[in-house]
């Protein structure tokens, strides 16, 4: 028997009232002309890095595999342009670690790999997971977790609910918003396919209620008596409260189930997929074209013409920003991702990666941060924490390097969403302290 849909979201507490700043939601996405050069790091996912499968001087077609790995948790990397491999070098990624990268100079033709053809009809879970791997798909919401690992649900776990994550709770970012509006049919195609293969009879398309146009549009398409006679796929509006789109928060909002510590959505019968990921899966099944481009929101006070751009993966950030009219003023901070969880990068020469959904350039005023003052114990961090943690006590334990206290305060449950630091009137660097605390705990052999 099919599971009931709840009338209202289960979760109504916690989180931070972050302003939306969604300046680009009304602008149709534009396609970036092929760049002259792309830089493709071999690590664009969580898991083992790939090794280049091409050599300097090789000619490559668009969509050809150029990096792969034997490790299970990894995803192959494809070229996003056609041209010549000019260099195999190493680049510094956002986290500061070095990784191998393949540099390709464009021949300007964007010639597709002749070996690309639509995959054979997918019949079961293994084939679905295999297809996701061949496509190089990773979680496009920002985490970059290889999709085939997620889709290959262990046999002993039953999935009864699919949640399509279109919450998009990060300020500025509208890439998923535009995906839903421009590719709504694709999204639903992907949903019907995954639903059929995983034999799931309840699908939430979870969207924050600040996107009424998306809700209306997807409801229209989802009302499909032919594909979904039992009305098992429903658009589910959620309260607009950061971090609504975080996996654990989302699962609880939709199903009321709380994922136990250290467990995954599959442990409570749920599969969560980003809307762009599921839409991509549908187009891959139709065309066989692997993941080579990404819709990215370009915004921030230092960008002249904010917009959503469909970018070949590996394009240097600078090229994309130039396409958006260049910098309005001297940028002081450059972010990969939204302002709450995005990573500040050191240079605009770094390439756009698979899991990037935004690039934000902030001017001096916007990049300025509050000078930290003493904690006044107002408790705003406690109210804001979606995970029921006590950030101020965590910070104090980090200062004392008290790993036993960090363990007891369940530092590992923190997903670094930034709600606490956002809310803190004293401007304490709570997330930074918690990251440091996690490394202390790891070094001392504790479980994070």
């Amino acid at each position: 028997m099919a599971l009931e849909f709840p009338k209202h979201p289960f979760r109504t507490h916690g989180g931070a009232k972050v302003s939306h700043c969604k300046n680009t939601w009304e602008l149709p996405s534009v396609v970036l002309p092929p760049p002259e050069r792309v830089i493709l790091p071999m690590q664009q996912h969580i898991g083992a890095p790939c090794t280049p499968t091409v050599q300097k001087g090789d000619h490559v077609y668009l969509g050809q595999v150029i990096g792969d790995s034997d490790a299970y948790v990894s995803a192959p990397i494809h070229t996003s342009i056609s041209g010549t491999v000019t260099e195999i070098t190493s680049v510094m990624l956002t986290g500061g670690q070095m990784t191998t990268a393949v540099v390709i100079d464009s021949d300007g033709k964007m010639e597709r790999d002749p070996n690309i053809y639509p995959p054979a009809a997918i019949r079961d879970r293994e084939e679905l997971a295999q297809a996701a791997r061949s496509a190089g798909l990773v979680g496009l919401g920002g985490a970059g977790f290889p999709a085939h690992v997620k889709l290959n649900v262990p046999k002993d776990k039953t999935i009864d609910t699919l949640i399509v994550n279109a919450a998009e709770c990060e300020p500025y970012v509208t890439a998923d918003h535009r995906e839903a509006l421009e590719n709504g049919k694709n999204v639903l195609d992907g949903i019907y396919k995954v639903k059929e293969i995983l034999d799931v009879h309840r699908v939430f398309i979870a969207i924050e209620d600040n996107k009424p146009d998306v809700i209306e549009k997807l409801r229209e398409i989802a009302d499909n008596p032919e594909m979904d006679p039992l009305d098992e796929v429903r658009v589910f509006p959620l309260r607009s409260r950061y971090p609504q789109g975080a996996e654990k928060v989302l699962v609880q909002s939709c199903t009321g189930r709380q994922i136990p510590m250290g467990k995954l959505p599959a442990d409570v019968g749920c599969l969560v997929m980003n809307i762009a990921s599921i839409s991509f899966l549908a187009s891959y099944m139709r065309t066989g074209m692997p993941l080579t481009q990404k819709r990215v929101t370009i915004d921030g006070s230092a960008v002249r013409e904010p917009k959503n751009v469909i970018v070949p993966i590996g394009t240097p950030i600078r090229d994309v920003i130039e396409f958006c009219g260049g910098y309005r003023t001297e940028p002081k901070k450059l972010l990969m991702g939204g302002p709450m969880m995005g990573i500040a990068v050191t240079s605009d020469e770094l390439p756009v990666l698979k899991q990037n959904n935004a690039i934000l350039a902030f001017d001096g005023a916007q990049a300025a941060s509050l000078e930290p003052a003493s904690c006044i114990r107002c408790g705003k961090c406690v109210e804001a924490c979606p995970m029921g943690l006590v950030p101020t006590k965590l910070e104090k334990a980090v200062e004392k390097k008290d790993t036993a206290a960090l363990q007891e305060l369940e530092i590992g449950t923190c997903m670094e969403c930034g709600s606490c630091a956002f809310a803190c009137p004293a401007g304490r660097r709570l997330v930074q302290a918690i990251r440091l605390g996690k490394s202390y705990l790891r070094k001392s052999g504790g479980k994070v």
Partner: protein
Amino acid sequence: MDKLIVSSSPHFHGKRTTQNIMLDVILALTPAMIASVVIFGFRAAVLILTCVASCILSEYLSRRLMKRPQTVGDLSCVVTGILLALNLPVTLSPLIAVFGSVVAIVVVKQMFGGIGQNFVNPALTARIILMNSFPARMTHWTAAFDYSAGADAVTTATPLVSFWQNGGPSSPTVLELFLGAHGGCLGETCALAILIGGLYLIIRKVISPVIPVTYLATAAALSALLGRNPLIDLLSGGLMLGAFFMATDYATSPLYFKGRLIFAIGCGILTMVIREFGSLPEGVSYSIVLMNILTPLIERISKPRPFGKQKEQKKKEGSPHEA
């Protein structure tokens, strides 16, 4: 391109700062300050200014002397000054008020590390010290609207004293209590002004309603249970001021919802126990300070449950799992 700033996420911050929270508290205390000047005359204004000025100076000098970053700018010392003044009788000598301010800022606040670190409420503790040091002067009440200076003032009892010790016809009506037309400390008499300020703080989300509502409800319920008049108990003495402005002090009340409930219930019980059974007519200061001291213990038993943490299974002795 100049060097880019690289910092840890989040790269966004809410509009709240310590300073604008304190400004909100000062704004919320303004109705009570105005009411005190209307009810007790310009000497109330002198007392408030004295306390605020000496609190600012104490904070400034003590930070300087300790070679610590200056914190006068966060305005918390102004709040302490106002709160202390609102807890004094109008006839008090400004010199004593200065002494109280120094105690509040230097001894209670700065000696324990400054803002957020004090374990008891500075203004209330200073008031208690003044009460014990100058008991007669601290209970020298004048009637409302009697603006005459010094010792000529007609002394009067506060409503709590007149009701429960004298009874009698001189007791103010409920309406007079609500509007503050009766004897008492500067800021505690006008319940209306305090309510306006308290509501403002709740609407601005500076304080959560948990502590004031629970405190007042507990006190009212106990008052009824003890056969007293709950309405008069709520409106007289420092209960209103204490519930909205003192018990909600960030540094000295629990961080968590459950803890705040326990804290406020404790305050309510202690207040009524002191009022009914103690030798003092008033128990708000002592009850809040006592609960301040218990705050770390309350926090230990009221921690929120982290997301996804299973309720701890009770270990049964001799269960097979332990073998």
